[in-house]
């Protein structure tokens, strides 16, 4: 729906920058296709005609809180429950520290690189004109909401993306490597890809559909996780002698928080309190429910027992998969995405571990990356009105759109992999990526942070 044809050159500021004051999809799509205007105000407060909407602002303030909640404590608990008890704190520490580092980097320049005016290089990267929020005040608008609210909402996406990668390297990584990797990765991978797709860059120009981050968030994080896992090497005893998740209830608690928070992630990506937000929330929920049941159902068939860790993993796979498509598909499309997510990601998880023997420890690629890529491709087909979708842009065929989507995913994957490899190669040669074997056995909680997870006596 929000896509110009690949050859049509219609500018598109990504779904994030849409004006959202109109309430019917018809009108909304029309405005989008009047791409230049939409693109115009993507440059910031210049577009004086926009007016603040209290309802839209209220919902995006709320969505910002919901998406922060996804990472902290949602993702932190989801991941921390999956590791051994002796590493539980280190995982939470990674989530908190990455969130803090990214927040400051977002202010210092990453926001500007992603959403600022790139001038001549606008196709590739934004400029540094908005570094430290220069020129942005409480009265600046972005569409119908204050720009500080847009900045904050986008920041919560920038936080969760490198935080997802934490699942690739727990129980053996050096803390300094976590911090440095996340910082550089934000600048070199996240900010440019975000600009390409949501900041008016070249993939936006081509009409790429990525409503809430199947490419910007999940493809980048998922692919980088494989690279990190490979560069770091597997945990001792991988894959046959690992310990089970130390606290599945904690895993499920975190997953439930991700579910609730994802309403802000996807429905907030409508940038307004309107029907588009409502429909995005609806398809998000349906895809999650479907994928959860499919995952658990397959476990039931294969092992005789559906597990809690399994059902919530399916849930998260369903959430990741619908993310790029949440603005384009209807309930039927959501069910289809859910079914594929619940089965494909489960297969992928085993394939990564036992065939490829990659210790992407908490399945970041299999669940988030695979799901996000899946959804990013499928949206090209499932947006068709016959399946209840909202349709593609005028003159764009399914084949055209699938081509654009595949290109966007492919280029993003290659760039994420290459850049992650380069960053990690430098870090490995300098601060080092991995702790000693004895430290690994003792656990990171006590060795890296001097704390113990549970003192229950």
């Amino acid at each position, binding site marked *: 729906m929000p896509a110009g044809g690949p050859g049509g050159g219609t500018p598109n500021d990504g779904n994030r920058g849409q004006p959202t004051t109109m309430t019917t999809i018809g009108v909304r799509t029309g405005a989008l296709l009047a791409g230049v205007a939409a693109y115009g105000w993507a440059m910031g407060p210049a577009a004086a005609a926009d007016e603040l909407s209290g309802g839209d602002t209220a919902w995006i303030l709320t969505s910002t809180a919901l998406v922060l909640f996804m990472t902290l404590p949602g993702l932190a608990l989801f991941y921390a429950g999956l590791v051994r008890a002796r590493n539980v704190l280190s995982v939470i520490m990674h989530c908190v520290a990455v969130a803090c580092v990214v927040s400051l980097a977002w202010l210092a320049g990453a926001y500007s690189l992603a959403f600022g005016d790139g001038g001549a290089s606008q196709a590739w990267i934004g400029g540094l004109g908005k570094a430290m929020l220069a020129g942005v005040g409480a009265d600046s608008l972005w569409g119908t909401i204050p720009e500080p609210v847009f900045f904050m909402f986008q920041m919560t996406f920038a936080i969760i993306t490198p935080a997802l990668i934490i699942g690739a390297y727990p129980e053996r990584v050096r803390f300094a490597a976590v911090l440095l990797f996340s910082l550089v990765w934000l600048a070199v991978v996240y900010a440019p890809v975000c600009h390409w797709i949501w900041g008016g860059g070249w993939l936006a120009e081509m009409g790429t559909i990525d409503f809430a981050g199947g490419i910007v968030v999940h493809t980048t994080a998922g692919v980088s996780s494989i690279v990190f896992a490979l560069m770091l090497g597997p945990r001792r005893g991988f*894959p*046959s*002698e*690992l*310990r*089970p*998740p130390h606290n599945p209830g904690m895993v499920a608690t975190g997953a439930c928080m991700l579910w609730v928070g994802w309403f802000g992630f996807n429905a907030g990506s409508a940038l307004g309190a309107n029907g588009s937000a409502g429909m995005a929330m609806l398809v998000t929920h349906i895809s999650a429910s479907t994928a959860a049941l499919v995952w658990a159902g397959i*476990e039931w068939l*294969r*092992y005789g*027992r559906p*597990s809690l*860790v*399994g059902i919530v*993993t399916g849930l998260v796979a369903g959430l990741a998969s619908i993310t790029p498509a949440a603005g384009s598909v209807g309930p039927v499309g959501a069910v289809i995405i859910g079914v594929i997510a619940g089965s494909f990601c*489960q297969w992928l*998880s*085993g394939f990564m*571990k*036992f065939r490829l023997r990659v210790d992407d420890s908490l*399945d970041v690629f299999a669940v988030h990356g695979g799901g996000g890529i899946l959804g990013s491709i499928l949206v090209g087909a499932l947006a068709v009105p016959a399946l209840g979708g909202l349709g593609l842009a005028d003159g764009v065929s399914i084949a055209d759109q699938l081509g654009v989507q595949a290109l966007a995913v492919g280029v993003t994957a290659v760039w994420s992999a290459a850049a992650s490899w380069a960053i990690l190669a430098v870090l490995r040669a300098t601060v080092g990526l991995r702790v000693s074997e004895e430290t690994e056995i003792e656990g990171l909680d006590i060795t890296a942070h001097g704390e113990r997870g549970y003192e229950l006596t």
Partner: protein
Amino acid sequence: MKLIKAIFKPHRLDAVREAMGEVGIQGMTVSEVKGFGRQKGQTEIYRGAEYQVYFVPKVQLETVVPDELADRAVEAIAAAARTDRIGDGKIFVLDVDRAVRIRTGEEGDEAL
């Protein structure tokens, strides 16, 4: 006096405690332990990966009894803990030199 050390399945604890009461033994100390033996640990599956858990949760009961009660206590535990399934556990008897009740300073059989 004898120290009886019995390792058995956790869900038999209540039955064993009652059986001990019938033999006239009131005092005992119990701890949670992990057992390795013929009964192998389970395989747990998360996200399709198999996790081999080598140990089996057991409880260990220790009680010190007068010599003449030892055999009856052993029989009572054995009967109550038995489920006829692998992993039922063991009972060991050791000799005790001395026993003291902390509260009163009583020694020997009095202390038990």
